[in-house]
Structure formats: structure tokens, C-alpha cells
């Protein structure tokens, strides 16, 4: 699941060399919007999902428009702070409208655990990685098989040349932001029944997803997928065999180790120039 959110960092990084640091808050927004439409308004789930994804696409586009583009055009790194600011605003808006309480998000997959031998799991927990991998596959297909995806890839490859070929670069960047927010939103909807919905739920997920993106290599989608799975495994093994209290220490310690050994990430390309 970290992988799905982390992929969002990769998508915007490769098109524009910028990142949306409010990815974690987009996860939260996905869960909160889905809660509002599905639970509070009682709409059918497919419709609620559609509304959520549309709202998240708008959120992503908005982040790009107000927090990235003004700085991107001036080659200023202030987008970094600006996207964090948008995230904090989103969290506070959620607190004002949704309230600060954690709320339960019902899912038919959370009713009864599936028992295997003496231990069991909830179907929802299985759905999360399966849906995650499926979506990552879809994103790859979109990039390699559809004309629009190819345009985005072209921008990532060489913005100047792509611009000369008539590709609208600002629009491509905006699209990449919308896409990355949608991915985070899906993650939010998938996680909601497991984590409960609250305005604070996204912060730590966003941070860990960023760690995953760095470990995997910002420029490498497969690297991020592998790192996402690996990070999740390391976390649960640490919790299972050492202690829950050591989980964050081991997890983030690993990030530092990887950065020392391979500053460009496990499968990332070694940059030929400093960025």
C-alpha cells in the first residue's frame, strides 16, 4: 500500500521534477470524501468511489495549480513548502467539516476474519495489496499503451523536446498531479476500513510512502513497487519478532542505510546531473 502512494511521488517527479508532499493528506482526503458520500449520504459504493476519485483528481490538479506551477515556472524549490502547506490546510479543513473523531468505515470484507489454521486475516487486508498491485499494473499500461500516457512519458524523458513536439507541458504536469492524487485516494478508500477514518490518518502514511519512494528510487516505478512491499514486510517482521516499539526505528534506519549506500535508490537511475 505504501507502494501505491509512493508511486504518486514517482509520477509527478518524473514529469516535472517536483513532488506533492501532501500525498499522505490525499490518502486522508480519499477516505474522508468516501466516508462522506458512502456512509453519511448513503450513496451506493460504485457511485461513491467515482465521486471520490473525481474529487481527488480535482484535489491533485488544484495542488499543482496553486502550490507547484507558480514556483515551477520560476524554477524555485518553494513548491516543497507550498505542497506541505496545502496538505496541512486539507487536514484542518477535514477537522472542521468531518470532526476530529476516528469513524468506522464499514466494509463487507471486515465482517468476519478468514481463518487459516489457528490464525486468520480480514479479506480487506488481502484486498489492499492485490488492488494495489493491480492499479500499479494499470498505471504502467496507461504509460506504455495509451497515447496520452506516452505523452506524459515523453515529458518525463525530455521536456524540451516534448514541448517542441507540441505537447502541452503544463497540462501534462497537471495531469500527473491529478493521477498521483487519485492513486493516493484509492489507497485511502482501501485503507479506511482497516485504519478507521480520521483527519490525522494520512500524515504518517505520506511520510512512509516518501521513504519508500526514496528507497526504491524516485525515477523507477518497479523499484518503488519492490521497496513498498519490502518496507511493509520489514515493518511487520520487526513488529512480530522484535517489538512494535522498534518498528519505526528499524524502518527509518533502513532508509538512512539505503541512502548512504545508494543515494539514488535501489533501482533508481544514477543521475547524470545534479538536480
Amino acid at each position, binding site marked *: 500500500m505504501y507502494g501505491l502512494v509512493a508511486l504518486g511521488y514517482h509520477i509527478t517527479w518524473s514529469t516535472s521534477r517536483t513532488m506533492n508532499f501532501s500525498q499522505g493528506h490525499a490518502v486522508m482526503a480519499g477516505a474522508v470524501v468516501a466516508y462522506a458520500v458512502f456512509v453519511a449520504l448513503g450513496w451506493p459504493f460504485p457511485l461513491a468511489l467515482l465521486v471520490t476519485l473525481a474529487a481527488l483528481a480535482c484535489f491533485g490538479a488544484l495542488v499543482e495549480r496553486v502550490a507547484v506551477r507558480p514556483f515551477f515556472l520560476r524554477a524555485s524549490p518553494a513548491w516543497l513548502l507550498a505542497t506541505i502547506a496545502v496538505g496541512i490546510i486539507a487536514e484542518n479543513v477535514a477537522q472542521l467539516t468531518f*470532526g*476530529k*473523531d476516528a469513524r*468506522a468505515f464499514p466494509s463487507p470484507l471486515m465482517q468476519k476474519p478468514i*481463518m487459516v489454521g*489457528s490464525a*486468520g486475516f*480480514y479479506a480487506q487486508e488481502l484486498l489492499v495489496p492485490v488492488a494495489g498491485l493491480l492499479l500499479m499494473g494499470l498505471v504502467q499500461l496507461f504509460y506504455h499503451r495509451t497515447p496520452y500516457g506516452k505523452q506524459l512519458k515523453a515529458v518525463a524523458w525530455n521536456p524540451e523536446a516534448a514541448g517542441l513536439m507540441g505537447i502541452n507541458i503544463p497540462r501534462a504536469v497537471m495531469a500527473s498531479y491529478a493521477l498521483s492524487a487519485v492513486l493516493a485516494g484509492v489507497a485511502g478508500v482501501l485503507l479506511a476500513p482497516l485504519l*478507521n477514518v480520521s483527519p490525522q490518518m494520512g500524515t504518517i502514511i505520506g511520510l512512509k510512502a516518501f521513504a519508500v519512494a526514496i528507497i526504491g528510487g524516485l525515477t523507477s516505478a518497479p523499484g518503488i513497487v519492490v521497496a513498498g512491499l519490502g518496507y511493509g514486510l520489514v515493518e*511487520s517482521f520487526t513488529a512480530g519478532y522484535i517489538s512494535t516499539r522498534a518498528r519505526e526505528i528499524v524502518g527509518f534506519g533502513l532508509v538512512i542505510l539505503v541512502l548512504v549506500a545508494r543515494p539514488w535508490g535501489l533501482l533508481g537511475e544514477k543521475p547524470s546531473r545534479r538536480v
Partner: protein
Amino acid sequence: MRRLSAMLTILLAVAWTTAGPALAQSKEPVKIGLSAAVSGGSAASGEAIKRGLLIAIDEINAKGGVLGGRKLELVVRDDEGNPQKGVTIARELVEREKVAAVFGGLHTTVALAQVPVWHELKTPYMGAWAAGTNVTRNGQTPNYVFRVSANDDYVDRYLSRYAVDALKKGKPGLLLENTPWGQSNETGLTKWFGEKGIKAVGVERFNWNDPDMSPQLLRLKNAGADLIVLVANAPEGAQVLRSKAKLGWDTAMISHWGISGGRFAELTGDLSDGVVFLQTYTFFGKQNERGQYVLKVLREKYAVKEPGDVIAPVGTANAYDGMHLVALAIDQAGSTDGAKVRDALESLRAEYKGLIKTYKRPFTAEQHDALTDEDYVMVVWKGGKIVPVNMK
């Protein structure tokens, strides 16, 4: 003519400003502060405390208030369960709002952070929920911190006695939140189980907002625990139950009262059925005069139909009795001066026939907890409501 009226206006104004304060002083309301989480996962606890305070305040004001006619007035601040925020609020309540005493909410972390502030600003604090042992046993002299609520040390004695004597369990596994509150209970449970010659088979901890408690539960299960003793608030308590169902481990579970504070029933559904936990008071069963009165007001003002609808009942009960005790102390002190009210609380002369019990000299220099394990009751979640356990 014009000059005359101008002079009159000035005279009137002077008369107003000089007479104003003197008049206001005698009838100025006595402010009582509340620093509690009225939002977040534990919001129900703050709301319950507020209700208890308001019911008592209305009752006292209807009888003429305190200090010969001054009305009580409640000032509520949301500490969000955040210790830093708690300290800021403590100062604001005393320095800006000039409250005579402050009531506290659910979080031991907040209560502990505020202790030095009460001492420094010489303002009495009345705990209505947070049970950390060293909130009241804080080493300060004179001690400004009082409590009408549970104290972890007594709770742990009570829980261990219940586990061994009533449930006949001998292999408890402790599952605690990784906070000062959890720590406070680890000390107490180890001590009181130890008195009975029992050692916990495992001690596991979790952090706030942890989504999955399976690893901890699995370790307790493998260690052979026949009973889980839980110290958690509602959000984490809910995750514990989910993980427990996932492991298919149907061992008995008893809990400190944190799980009665939030949306525990909503978060867990029918998983919460059968979880036994402790309270200082229950609105079920035969009620004394106070109990009938409080339930009546809850029915009229807060749409409570039956005892099971009372949200976070201990908050309301503790705060209600605490408010009456503070009012008695203010009257005995004859002033709202913090040091004098503190002294009066420690040497309260009036007997107060309260909701939870009859208080005869509830506090002394050594004892700042009005309630002990003599006063606790055991209850159980059933169909999303809290019902009493029939215990001998």
C-alpha cells in the same frame, strides 16, 4: 443648559466607573475551568464531564450559588489530549479567565504536564477522569491536585483481585498503551498481581493510532496467557479487538476504563460484546436520590432515554460529585483564593451525600483521591451499551 447636561453626564460616568467594580465584585460569577478533550477519538469523555459539571452547577446556582450569592460559571477549553496544549490552556484559564479551580479530562499525559502549572499558579485542580497514579501522588507540597475518579494504583489492585478471585485466572498477559498512563498501570498491575504470587506471562505495548495489534496478541497467546488485561483508549482498544478476532483467540479480557470514553461501540460493532471493564459509577440498577436527579436532567436536557444511553457515564458521575465538593470547599474557604480553597478541600468539614457515595472528609494531606477500589464497579459491553456485571 448644555454645559449642565455635559457635567451631569461626566458625573454619572464617574459614579458608574467607581461603583461598578464594587457592585460587580459581590455578584461577579465564580468561574470554574475545564481542560479536557472535547474533540478527537475521546471526545465523548469531555462531553460527559461537561454534562456532569453543568448539572451540578445549575443545581448549586438554583440554590443561590456560592459565597452568599455568586453564581458559578463554566469555562471549557479543548486540550485535544495534547500535553503542550494542556499547559497553554492551564495558564490561559488561570491568568486570563481567572478561574477559581480547574477540572481535568481523560488524558493522564495532559494531567501530568499540567501539575507544575497548578502548583506555580496556586490553583486547585480536580481530576474527573485521568487515572494516572502520580497525577495525585505527584510529590508536590502543598499538593494542588485532587481527584474524584479512579487512581491506577487502586484500579490495578481491583483488576488483579477480579482476575484472580472472580475469574480464577492465573496467567494474565498485559496489553498496555505506550504512554505514561500505560506505564503507570504496568507498575500497579505488576505490584498487585505480585501480591497474589502471580507474574504476568507477558507485557506488550502499542502506540497511539497503531492499526494492527496482532503481533502483540500473538506473543501473549504463545506465552500462554489465559486472560488479557487491557489498558487502552477507544481507538486502540477497537484495533485490539479486531486483531484478537483475527487471531481467533477467544480468551477472556478485562480492561481499565479507557475503552468507555470514545466511540468504542461504533468502532467495534459486536466485537465489543463481553469485554469487562471497570467504572467508578453505573447508572444501572437502583439509584440514590442524586442518581435519580442526574438521570432526570440527562433525560430532559440530553435526550438520554435509558441508563445505557448515558455516554461515558464515569465522566458525568465524577465531574458531578467533584463540582459539588469544590463548591463546598469554596464556601468553607470563604474566598476564591486558590491556596485557601486548596486548604479547604483538604479539610472539608461538610459531609456531602453524593452520587457515587457519601463523602466524609474525602481528602487529607496524604490522600488526594476521593475514591478508592472500595467504590469501583465492574461493567460489560453488551450490544453497544454498558451494563453492570453481577459480581459477588
